[in-house]
Protein backbone atom coordinates (compact mmCIF):
# COMPACT_ATOMS: atom_id res chain seq x y z
CA UNK A 1 0.00 0.00 0.00
CA UNK A 2 1.52 3.26 -1.15
CA UNK A 3 0.37 6.69 0.03
CA UNK A 4 -0.23 9.58 -2.33
CA UNK A 5 2.63 11.95 -3.00
CA UNK A 6 2.79 15.09 -0.89
CA UNK A 7 5.06 17.96 0.02
CA UNK A 8 6.78 17.57 3.34
CA UNK A 9 7.72 20.31 5.77
CA UNK A 10 9.45 19.99 9.09
CA UNK A 11 9.56 23.60 10.29
CA UNK A 12 11.56 24.64 13.32
CA UNK A 13 8.93 26.77 14.99
CA UNK A 14 5.21 27.19 15.49
CA UNK A 15 4.87 30.46 13.54
CA UNK A 16 6.07 28.64 10.44
CA UNK A 17 3.63 25.83 11.17
CA UNK A 18 0.75 28.33 11.36
CA UNK A 19 1.86 29.99 8.14
CA UNK A 20 1.94 26.69 6.35
CA UNK A 21 -1.45 25.70 7.73
CA UNK A 22 -2.90 28.99 6.54
CA UNK A 23 -1.26 28.81 3.12
CA UNK A 24 -2.50 25.28 2.51
CA UNK A 25 -5.79 25.35 4.38
CA UNK A 26 -7.80 22.20 3.83
CA UNK A 27 -4.92 20.49 2.07
CA UNK A 28 -2.40 20.26 4.86
CA UNK A 29 -2.25 17.85 7.76
CA UNK A 30 -0.15 17.98 10.89
CA UNK A 31 2.12 14.96 11.26
CA UNK A 32 2.92 14.00 14.84
CA UNK A 33 3.67 10.31 15.34
CA UNK A 34 1.83 9.38 12.16
CA UNK A 35 0.64 6.05 13.54
CA UNK A 36 -3.00 6.73 12.63
CA UNK A 37 -2.49 9.09 9.72
CA UNK A 38 0.02 7.06 7.73
CA UNK A 39 -2.13 3.89 7.57
CA UNK A 40 -5.07 6.05 6.42
CA UNK A 41 -2.83 7.55 3.74
CA UNK A 42 -1.76 4.08 2.64
CA UNK A 43 -5.40 3.17 2.11
CA UNK A 44 -5.71 6.50 0.29
CA UNK A 45 -8.53 7.39 2.62
CA UNK A 46 -6.48 10.46 3.50
CA UNK A 47 -4.63 12.25 0.72
CA UNK A 48 -3.19 15.44 2.16
CA UNK A 49 -1.15 17.45 -0.31
CA UNK A 50 1.06 18.81 2.45
CA UNK A 51 2.35 17.24 5.61
CA UNK A 52 3.71 19.44 8.37
CA UNK A 53 5.86 17.41 10.71
CA UNK A 54 6.15 18.82 14.24
CA UNK A 55 9.34 16.92 15.03
CA UNK A 56 11.60 19.99 14.82
CA UNK A 57 9.33 22.31 16.80
CA UNK A 58 11.08 22.76 20.13
CA UNK A 59 9.41 22.35 23.48
CA UNK A 60 6.54 20.15 22.43
CA UNK A 61 7.61 17.04 24.31
CA UNK A 62 7.56 18.46 27.83
CA UNK A 63 6.31 16.22 30.58
CA UNK A 64 6.29 17.91 33.97
CA UNK A 65 4.18 19.15 36.82
CA UNK A 66 3.91 22.91 36.82
CA UNK A 67 1.54 25.41 38.45
CA UNK A 68 -0.79 22.78 39.82
CA UNK A 69 -1.03 20.85 36.57
CA UNK A 70 0.62 17.98 34.86
CA UNK A 71 1.66 19.37 31.48
CA UNK A 72 1.97 16.81 28.72
CA UNK A 73 3.39 18.21 25.49
CA UNK A 74 1.50 17.14 22.41
CA UNK A 75 4.60 15.41 21.02
CA UNK A 76 5.15 13.22 24.08
CA UNK A 77 5.33 9.65 22.83
CA UNK A 78 3.11 7.01 24.38
CA UNK A 79 6.19 5.02 25.34
CA UNK A 80 7.58 8.01 27.23
CA UNK A 81 4.37 8.30 29.23
CA UNK A 82 4.39 4.59 29.88
CA UNK A 83 7.95 4.74 31.17
CA UNK A 84 7.69 7.95 33.18
CA UNK A 85 7.95 7.34 36.94
CA UNK A 86 5.95 10.55 37.43
CA UNK A 87 3.06 9.14 35.37
CA UNK A 88 3.35 5.67 36.85
CA UNK A 89 3.23 6.94 40.41
CA UNK A 90 0.96 9.97 40.30
CA UNK A 91 -1.32 9.31 37.32
CA UNK A 92 -1.99 5.57 37.18
CA UNK A 93 -4.98 6.09 34.89
CA UNK A 94 -2.86 7.85 32.29
CA UNK A 95 -0.20 5.20 32.64
CA UNK A 96 -2.77 2.48 32.11
CA UNK A 97 -4.24 4.21 29.07
CA UNK A 98 -0.86 4.79 27.45
CA UNK A 99 0.08 1.15 28.11
CA UNK A 100 -2.87 -0.17 26.10
CA UNK A 101 -2.66 2.10 23.07
CA UNK A 102 -2.18 -0.18 20.05
CA UNK A 103 0.98 -2.23 20.72
CA UNK A 104 4.40 -1.57 22.26
CA UNK A 105 6.07 -0.73 18.95
CA UNK A 106 3.38 1.67 17.82
CA UNK A 107 3.67 3.39 21.19
CA UNK A 108 7.31 4.19 20.49
CA UNK A 109 6.20 6.71 17.86
CA UNK A 110 2.55 7.46 18.59
CA UNK A 111 2.05 10.71 20.48
CA UNK A 112 -0.57 11.74 22.99
CA UNK A 113 -1.27 14.86 20.94
CA UNK A 114 -2.04 12.78 17.90
CA UNK A 115 -4.14 10.42 19.95
CA UNK A 116 -6.27 13.31 21.23
CA UNK A 117 -6.36 15.50 18.12
CA UNK A 118 -7.29 12.62 15.80
CA UNK A 119 -10.51 12.56 17.84
CA UNK A 120 -11.24 8.95 17.05
CA UNK A 121 -13.71 7.77 19.69
CA UNK A 122 -11.79 4.51 19.82
CA UNK A 123 -8.57 6.18 20.94
CA UNK A 124 -7.70 5.50 24.54
CA UNK A 125 -6.49 8.78 26.01
CA UNK A 126 -9.51 11.05 25.61
CA UNK A 127 -11.80 9.13 27.96
CA UNK A 128 -9.18 8.99 30.70
CA UNK A 129 -8.38 12.66 30.23
CA UNK A 130 -12.06 13.59 30.36
CA UNK A 131 -12.30 11.80 33.69
CA UNK A 132 -9.28 13.74 34.93
CA UNK A 133 -10.81 17.08 33.86
CA UNK A 134 -7.99 17.76 31.41
CA UNK A 135 -7.65 21.04 29.55
CA UNK A 136 -6.04 21.32 26.15
CA UNK A 137 -3.97 24.20 24.87
CA UNK A 138 -4.22 25.29 21.29
CA UNK A 139 -1.96 27.88 19.74
CA UNK A 140 -2.41 29.79 16.55
CA UNK A 141 -1.37 33.08 15.03
CA UNK A 142 -4.09 34.77 17.07
CA UNK A 143 -2.83 33.50 20.37
CA UNK A 144 -3.25 30.72 22.86
CA UNK A 145 -6.55 29.15 23.86
CA UNK A 146 -7.15 26.78 26.69
CA UNK A 147 -10.32 24.79 26.83
CA UNK A 148 -11.69 21.74 28.59
CA UNK A 149 -11.14 18.59 26.59
CA UNK A 150 -14.94 18.21 26.61
CA UNK A 151 -15.19 21.28 24.38
CA UNK A 152 -12.25 20.27 22.24
CA UNK A 153 -13.83 16.96 21.16
CA UNK A 154 -16.62 18.12 18.86
CA UNK A 155 -17.58 14.99 16.99
CA UNK A 156 -16.07 11.89 15.44
CA UNK A 157 -12.67 13.02 14.15
CA UNK A 158 -13.68 16.64 14.59
CA UNK A 159 -12.11 18.99 17.12
CA UNK A 160 -12.50 22.63 18.04
CA UNK A 161 -9.11 23.45 16.51
CA UNK A 162 -9.19 26.32 14.04
CA UNK A 163 -7.61 25.51 10.67
CA UNK A 164 -4.39 27.31 11.60
CA UNK A 165 -4.19 26.16 15.20
CA UNK A 166 -2.00 23.46 16.67
CA UNK A 167 -2.65 21.40 19.78
CA UNK A 168 0.28 22.26 22.03
CA UNK A 169 -0.25 20.42 25.26
CA UNK A 170 -2.67 18.73 27.56
CA UNK A 171 -2.98 19.85 31.15
CA UNK A 172 -4.26 17.61 33.89
CA UNK A 173 -4.98 19.04 37.34
CA UNK A 174 -2.57 17.58 39.86
CA UNK A 175 -4.30 14.99 42.00
CA UNK A 176 -5.54 16.08 45.39
CA UNK A 177 -4.68 13.81 48.31
CA UNK A 178 -6.66 10.58 48.30
CA UNK A 179 -7.25 10.61 44.59
CA UNK A 180 -7.19 7.44 42.57
CA UNK A 181 -7.54 6.91 38.86
CA UNK A 182 -7.74 3.86 36.62
CA UNK A 183 -8.23 2.98 32.97
CA UNK A 184 -9.60 -0.39 31.98
CA UNK A 185 -9.84 -1.50 28.38
CA UNK A 186 -11.61 -4.57 27.10
CA UNK A 187 -9.92 -5.67 23.90
CA UNK A 188 -9.94 -8.99 22.10
CA UNK A 189 -6.26 -8.84 21.31
CA UNK A 190 -3.31 -6.54 21.73
CA UNK A 191 -3.41 -3.87 19.06
CA UNK A 192 -7.17 -3.92 18.63
CA UNK A 193 -9.43 -1.03 19.43
CA UNK A 194 -11.45 -1.31 22.59
CA UNK A 195 -14.76 -3.13 22.65
CA UNK A 196 -15.25 -0.55 25.36
CA UNK A 197 -12.94 1.11 27.83
CA UNK A 198 -13.47 3.26 30.86
CA UNK A 199 -11.27 5.82 32.60
CA UNK A 200 -12.20 6.92 36.09
CA UNK A 201 -10.94 9.29 38.77
CA UNK A 202 -12.12 9.48 42.36
CA UNK A 203 -11.11 11.80 45.20
CA UNK A 204 -12.08 10.79 48.70
CA UNK A 205 -12.50 13.29 51.47
CA UNK A 206 -13.20 11.83 54.87
CA UNK A 207 -14.25 8.56 53.26
CA UNK A 208 -16.72 10.32 51.00
CA UNK A 209 -16.38 10.87 47.32
CA UNK A 210 -15.69 14.57 46.81
CA UNK A 211 -14.74 14.49 43.14
CA UNK A 212 -15.37 11.95 40.44
CA UNK A 213 -14.64 11.61 36.77
CA UNK A 214 -15.78 8.91 34.35
CA UNK A 215 -14.90 8.83 30.65
CA UNK A 216 -15.94 6.20 28.12
CA UNK A 217 -14.01 5.00 25.05
CA UNK A 218 -15.51 3.77 21.77
CA UNK A 219 -19.15 3.78 22.77
CA UNK A 220 -20.26 6.93 20.99
CA UNK A 221 -19.30 9.48 18.37
CA UNK A 222 -16.64 10.89 20.70
CA UNK A 223 -15.17 9.91 24.01
CA UNK A 224 -18.05 10.42 26.42
CA UNK A 225 -18.14 11.82 29.91
CA UNK A 226 -20.68 10.03 32.07
CA UNK A 227 -21.81 13.10 33.94
CA UNK A 228 -24.80 11.61 35.73
CA UNK A 229 -22.71 8.81 37.08
CA UNK A 230 -20.11 11.35 38.19
CA UNK A 231 -22.59 13.49 40.09
CA UNK A 232 -24.22 10.45 41.62
CA UNK A 233 -20.94 9.58 43.32
CA UNK A 234 -20.40 12.97 44.87
CA UNK A 235 -20.98 13.06 48.59
CA UNK A 236 -21.41 9.31 48.83
CA UNK A 237 -19.32 6.65 50.44
CA UNK A 238 -17.88 4.46 47.71
CA UNK A 239 -19.53 1.26 48.86
CA UNK A 240 -20.34 -1.55 46.48
CA UNK A 241 -23.96 -0.52 45.93
CA UNK A 242 -22.92 3.04 45.12
CA UNK A 243 -20.26 1.95 42.66
CA UNK A 244 -22.70 -0.39 40.95
CA UNK A 245 -25.28 2.32 40.59
CA UNK A 246 -22.64 4.66 39.17
CA UNK A 247 -21.67 1.94 36.74
CA UNK A 248 -25.28 1.53 35.69
CA UNK A 249 -25.59 5.25 35.09
CA UNK A 250 -22.36 5.25 33.09
CA UNK A 251 -23.77 2.50 30.88
CA UNK A 252 -26.82 4.70 30.28
CA UNK A 253 -24.53 7.49 29.09
CA UNK A 254 -22.99 5.24 26.47
CA UNK A 255 -24.26 5.55 22.93
CA UNK A 256 -22.70 2.60 21.15
CA UNK A 257 -23.40 1.17 17.72
CA UNK A 258 -23.09 -2.44 16.63
CA UNK A 259 -19.96 -3.23 14.66
CA UNK A 260 -17.07 -5.68 14.52
CA UNK A 261 -16.27 -4.85 18.12
CA UNK A 262 -19.59 -6.22 19.26
CA UNK A 263 -23.32 -5.55 19.39
CA UNK A 264 -24.40 -2.24 20.88
CA UNK A 265 -26.11 -3.86 23.85
CA UNK A 266 -23.01 -5.83 24.72
CA UNK A 267 -20.88 -2.71 24.64
CA UNK A 268 -23.30 -0.97 26.93
CA UNK A 269 -23.10 -3.86 29.37
CA UNK A 270 -19.33 -3.73 29.17
CA UNK A 271 -19.36 -0.08 30.15
CA UNK A 272 -21.20 -1.14 33.27
CA UNK A 273 -18.78 -3.96 34.09
CA UNK A 274 -15.69 -1.90 33.36
CA UNK A 275 -16.90 1.18 35.21
CA UNK A 276 -17.60 -0.84 38.33
CA UNK A 277 -14.19 -2.50 38.12
CA UNK A 278 -12.34 0.71 37.36
CA UNK A 279 -14.07 2.52 40.20
CA UNK A 280 -13.10 -0.23 42.63
CA UNK A 281 -9.49 0.09 41.51
CA UNK A 282 -9.54 3.87 41.74
CA UNK A 283 -11.16 3.83 45.17
CA UNK A 284 -8.53 1.35 46.40
CA UNK A 285 -5.84 3.64 45.10
CA UNK A 286 -7.46 6.69 46.66
CA UNK A 287 -7.80 4.90 49.97
CA UNK A 288 -4.14 3.97 49.77
CA UNK A 289 -3.41 7.68 49.70
CA UNK A 290 -3.04 8.11 45.96
CA UNK A 291 -2.05 11.53 44.76
CA UNK A 292 0.24 12.33 47.66
Amino acid at each position, binding site marked *: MIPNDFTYFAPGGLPEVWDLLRQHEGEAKILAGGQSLI*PLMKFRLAEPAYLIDLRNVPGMALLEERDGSLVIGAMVREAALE*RSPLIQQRYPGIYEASAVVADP*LVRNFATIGGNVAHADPANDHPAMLLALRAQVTAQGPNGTRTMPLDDFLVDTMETALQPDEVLIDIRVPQPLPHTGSA*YLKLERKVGDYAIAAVGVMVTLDGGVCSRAGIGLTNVGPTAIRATQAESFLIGKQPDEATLREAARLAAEAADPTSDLHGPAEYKRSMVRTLTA*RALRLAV*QRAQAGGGQ
Partner: protein
Amino acid sequence: MTQHVTLTINGQPYQADIEPRVLLVHFIREVAGLTGTHVGCDTTSCGACTVLVNGTPAKSCTLFAVQVDGAEISTVEGLEQGGKLHPIQEGFFEEHGLQCGFCTPGMMMTSVAFLKEHPNPTDDEIRHAISGNLCRCTGYVNIVKAIQYAADKMRSEQATPPESTEPAMPATPTTPAPTATEAEAVR
Protein backbone atom coordinates in the same frame (compact mmCIF):
# COMPACT_ATOMS: atom_id res chain seq x y z
CA MET B 1 9.27 17.09 -5.51
CA THR B 2 12.08 15.00 -4.10
CA GLN B 3 13.92 15.54 -0.89
CA HIS B 4 17.46 14.65 0.11
CA VAL B 5 17.57 12.11 2.91
CA THR B 6 20.59 10.69 4.68
CA LEU B 7 20.33 7.70 6.95
CA THR B 8 23.01 5.72 8.69
CA ILE B 9 22.07 2.07 8.45
CA ASN B 10 24.12 -0.38 10.48
CA GLY B 11 26.88 2.21 10.60
CA GLN B 12 26.96 2.82 6.83
CA PRO B 13 25.72 6.13 5.46
CA TYR B 14 23.13 6.01 2.69
CA GLN B 15 21.71 9.03 0.95
CA ALA B 16 19.21 9.57 -1.80
CA ASP B 17 16.87 12.09 -3.31
CA ILE B 18 13.47 10.59 -2.73
CA GLU B 19 9.83 11.51 -2.75
CA PRO B 20 8.72 12.42 0.77
CA ARG B 21 6.20 9.58 0.64
CA VAL B 22 8.89 6.92 0.45
CA LEU B 23 8.36 4.69 3.44
CA LEU B 24 11.34 3.96 5.63
CA VAL B 25 11.01 0.26 4.86
CA HIS B 26 11.32 0.98 1.15
CA PHE B 27 14.37 3.19 1.72
CA ILE B 28 15.98 0.31 3.60
CA ARG B 29 14.98 -2.36 1.08
CA GLU B 30 15.25 -0.50 -2.21
CA VAL B 31 17.76 2.33 -1.66
CA ALA B 32 20.09 0.54 0.73
CA GLY B 33 19.31 -2.89 -0.75
CA LEU B 34 18.94 -4.47 2.68
CA THR B 35 16.10 -6.92 2.14
CA GLY B 36 16.15 -8.58 5.55
CA THR B 37 13.48 -6.13 6.72
CA HIS B 38 10.09 -7.31 5.45
CA VAL B 39 6.68 -5.85 4.74
CA GLY B 40 3.88 -7.94 6.21
CA CYS B 41 0.70 -5.98 6.77
CA ASP B 42 1.01 -2.32 5.68
CA THR B 43 -1.06 -1.13 8.65
CA THR B 44 1.40 -1.16 11.56
CA SER B 45 -0.12 -4.38 12.84
CA CYS B 46 2.42 -7.16 12.25
CA GLY B 47 5.89 -5.82 13.00
CA ALA B 48 7.69 -7.74 10.22
CA CYS B 49 9.23 -4.40 9.24
CA THR B 50 10.59 -3.58 12.70
CA VAL B 51 13.98 -1.82 12.75
CA LEU B 52 15.66 0.31 15.38
CA VAL B 53 15.55 4.07 14.87
CA ASN B 54 18.19 5.60 17.13
CA GLY B 55 17.91 2.44 19.22
CA THR B 56 14.10 2.46 19.49
CA PRO B 57 12.13 -0.26 17.71
CA ALA B 58 9.84 1.14 15.05
CA LYS B 59 7.56 -0.29 12.39
CA SER B 60 9.33 1.01 9.32
CA CYS B 61 6.27 0.58 7.06
CA THR B 62 4.54 3.33 9.04
CA LEU B 63 7.25 5.96 8.95
CA PHE B 64 8.32 8.11 6.06
CA ALA B 65 12.05 8.12 5.51
CA VAL B 66 11.99 11.94 5.64
CA GLN B 67 10.61 11.78 9.18
CA VAL B 68 13.78 10.12 10.41
CA ASP B 69 16.28 11.98 8.19
CA GLY B 70 19.66 11.84 9.88
CA ALA B 71 18.80 8.91 12.14
CA GLU B 72 20.83 5.85 12.96
CA ILE B 73 18.94 2.79 11.76
CA SER B 74 19.75 -0.78 12.81
CA THR B 75 18.44 -3.73 10.84
CA VAL B 76 18.83 -7.49 11.07
CA GLU B 77 21.83 -7.34 8.76
CA GLY B 78 23.76 -5.44 11.42
CA LEU B 79 23.26 -7.96 14.22
CA GLU B 80 26.13 -10.25 13.34
CA GLN B 81 29.43 -8.63 14.29
CA GLY B 82 32.82 -9.83 13.08
CA GLY B 83 31.41 -13.14 11.93
CA LYS B 84 29.87 -13.76 15.34
CA LEU B 85 26.12 -14.07 15.68
CA HIS B 86 24.37 -11.77 18.12
CA PRO B 87 23.03 -13.68 21.14
CA ILE B 88 19.49 -13.12 19.91
CA GLN B 89 20.36 -14.82 16.62
CA GLU B 90 21.94 -17.67 18.55
CA GLY B 91 18.84 -17.91 20.71
CA PHE B 92 16.48 -18.15 17.76
CA PHE B 93 18.71 -20.83 16.23
CA GLU B 94 19.16 -22.90 19.36
CA GLU B 95 15.53 -22.75 20.50
CA HIS B 96 13.91 -23.16 17.07
CA GLY B 97 12.42 -19.70 17.35
CA LEU B 98 11.70 -19.44 13.65
CA GLN B 99 10.06 -21.47 10.92
CA CYS B 100 9.38 -19.59 7.69
CA GLY B 101 11.67 -16.81 8.89
CA PHE B 102 9.59 -13.93 7.56
CA CYS B 103 8.72 -12.33 10.92
CA THR B 104 12.09 -13.24 12.43
CA PRO B 105 14.10 -10.09 11.62
CA GLY B 106 11.43 -7.84 13.13
CA MET B 107 10.99 -10.14 16.10
CA MET B 108 14.73 -10.10 16.76
CA MET B 109 15.06 -6.32 16.45
CA THR B 110 12.24 -5.81 18.95
CA SER B 111 13.93 -8.30 21.28
CA VAL B 112 17.34 -6.65 21.04
CA ALA B 113 15.94 -3.31 22.20
CA PHE B 114 13.84 -4.99 24.88
CA LEU B 115 16.74 -6.95 26.34
CA LYS B 116 18.82 -3.81 26.69
CA GLU B 117 16.26 -2.49 29.15
CA HIS B 118 15.23 -5.81 30.63
CA PRO B 119 18.32 -7.97 30.99
CA ASN B 120 16.51 -10.43 33.24
CA PRO B 121 12.97 -10.66 31.89
CA THR B 122 10.12 -12.94 32.88
CA ASP B 123 8.31 -14.89 30.16
CA ASP B 124 5.29 -12.63 30.61
CA GLU B 125 7.38 -9.52 30.09
CA ILE B 126 8.76 -11.03 26.91
CA ARG B 127 5.29 -11.84 25.62
CA HIS B 128 4.21 -8.30 26.37
CA ALA B 129 7.26 -6.87 24.60
CA ILE B 130 6.71 -8.87 21.41
CA SER B 131 2.96 -8.30 21.28
CA GLY B 132 3.42 -5.88 18.39
CA ASN B 133 5.08 -8.58 16.29
CA LEU B 134 2.93 -11.29 14.75
CA CYS B 135 4.18 -14.77 13.98
CA ARG B 136 1.98 -17.25 12.18
CA CYS B 137 4.28 -20.30 12.39
CA THR B 138 5.71 -20.80 15.86
CA GLY B 139 2.90 -20.13 18.31
CA TYR B 140 5.45 -17.93 20.13
CA VAL B 141 6.51 -20.66 22.59
CA ASN B 142 9.98 -21.06 21.14
CA ILE B 143 10.36 -17.35 20.46
CA VAL B 144 9.97 -16.72 24.18
CA LYS B 145 12.56 -19.41 24.84
CA ALA B 146 14.88 -17.89 22.24
CA ILE B 147 14.71 -14.49 23.90
CA GLN B 148 15.37 -16.05 27.30
CA TYR B 149 18.35 -17.85 25.77
CA ALA B 150 19.69 -14.54 24.50
CA ALA B 151 19.05 -12.88 27.87
CA ASP B 152 21.03 -15.61 29.63
CA LYS B 153 23.82 -15.34 27.14
CA MET B 154 23.97 -11.55 27.34
CA ARG B 155 23.98 -11.59 31.11
CA SER B 156 26.86 -14.01 31.17
CA GLU B 157 28.71 -11.88 28.62
CA GLN B 158 27.94 -8.74 30.65
CA ALA B 159 29.27 -10.40 33.77
CA THR B 160 32.78 -10.53 32.30
CA PRO B 161 33.64 -6.91 31.38
CA PRO B 162 33.95 -4.59 34.41
CA GLU B 163 31.91 -1.59 33.23
CA SER B 164 28.19 -2.01 32.82
CA THR B 165 26.25 0.19 30.45
CA GLU B 166 23.45 2.33 31.77
CA PRO B 167 20.04 1.77 30.22
CA ALA B 168 19.16 4.67 27.95
CA MET B 169 15.72 5.16 29.43
CA PRO B 170 14.11 4.11 32.66
CA ALA B 171 12.73 0.67 32.27
CA THR B 172 9.05 0.05 31.79
CA PRO B 173 7.47 -1.25 34.95
CA THR B 174 7.66 -4.98 35.21
CA THR B 175 3.94 -5.49 35.39
CA PRO B 176 1.95 -4.51 32.34
CA ALA B 177 -1.17 -2.47 32.84
CA PRO B 178 -4.02 -4.61 34.11
CA THR B 179 -6.55 -5.68 31.55
CA ALA B 180 -10.19 -5.77 32.40
CA THR B 181 -9.94 -9.46 32.98
CA GLU B 182 -7.03 -9.21 35.36
CA ALA B 183 -8.81 -6.47 37.23
CA GLU B 184 -11.34 -9.09 38.25
CA ALA B 185 -9.24 -9.42 41.35
CA VAL B 186 -10.65 -6.18 42.63
CA ARG B 187 -14.27 -6.73 41.88
